[in-house]
């Protein structure tokens, strides 16, 4: 009874060698000069010609493995499709987060007003623009700095999904955002000085 198999790739200076490992599913695209040989069922495939490998393997030594040749046009089509599908990868971007130990500071009197519009950049995703005139009140503290919240605008960070966010400030620099639902911190890239009025 035929068994399916994997191709395992090992690179050699002038050609690729594919060893067929019994009992696994065969998948993948390989390069093919298409010499199939070896009693223990291996294929030596030289560089340059693509194949889409799909076939079955008899578990007995000496079995033949069948490859389907893929022409250049088909290969180009496959690449174009891959690129298009890559462009449609819906959850490619996610916010980089790290756990944060939030300590609430309900008695804090630290308030300030943002003196000018401000854009805090993130390494991945993006954050709301912070609006001039918004009043910020300290609500807590995390390792990266003091955590401030405003009721004057919605503040979020966003990639594929959106997260409510509080601003984290340390020595007059916006260090990033604390995400209160996820209880994580996402860093500004780079940290940016903020101009405030008391």
């Amino acid at each position, binding site marked *: 009874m035929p068994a399916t198999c994997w191709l395992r790739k090992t690179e050699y200076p002038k050609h690729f060698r594919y060893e067929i490992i019994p009992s696994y599913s065969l998948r993948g695209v390989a390069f093919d000069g298409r010499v199939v040989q070896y009693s223990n069922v291996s294929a030596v495939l030289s560089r340059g010609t693509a194949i889409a490998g799909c076939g079955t393997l008899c578990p007995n030594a000496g079995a033949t493995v069948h490859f389907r040749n893929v022409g250049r046009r088909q290969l180009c089509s496959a690449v174009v499709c891959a690129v298009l599908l890559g462009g449609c990868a819906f959850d490619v971007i996610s916010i980089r987060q790290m756990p944060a130990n939030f300590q609430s500071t309900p008695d804090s009197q630290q308030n300030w007003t943002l003196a000018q519009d401000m854009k805090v950049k993130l390494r991945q995703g993006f954050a709301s623009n912070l609006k001039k005139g918004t009043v910020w009140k300290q609500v807590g503290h995390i390792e990266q700095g003091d955590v401030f919240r405003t009721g004057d605008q919605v503040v979020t960070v966003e990639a*594929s999904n959106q997260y*409510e966010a509080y601003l984290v400030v340390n020595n007059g620099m916006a260090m990033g955002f604390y995400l209160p639902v996820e209880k994580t911190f996402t860093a500004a890239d780079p940290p940016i000085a903020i101009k405030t009025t008391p």
Partner: protein
Amino acid sequence: MKLGRFTRLTAVGAIALFLAGCATSGPTFMEMQTSSKPIAANSGRIYVYRTSALGAALQPSVKLDGMTVGDAVPEGYFFVDRPAGTYKLSTATEVDRTVSLTLNSGEVRYVRLDVSFGFFVGHISPVLVDTAEAEKEIQKLHFTGK
């Protein structure tokens, strides 16, 4: 090729009926304001609304912490009252889209369901909206809650 008058009238009628069928019914936000119930103590309210009629056939369920609370009906809105806390509101078409938010006692939050193109079907993305902006957008939308 000329269409007969009867054919044209029939086509126009059919389109009108189709569009009428798509129209969201129910009282508008403005009409509901006087009769909407007050928010319970220790709770807040989350309004969920969709302004766009784009992709009208696409009306996925809206879930709050995994529990269905309504549908993404074009030009419709609904609200849910929940105890103060943190929540995740999500929709699912060919992808899941989520917004996470906090809710304080007596607070009102607004989440708009934005429509965007997808690979096979559109995406419905929930986004937090400033109160002032949301209150303008929601006025003429129809209540679709239960």
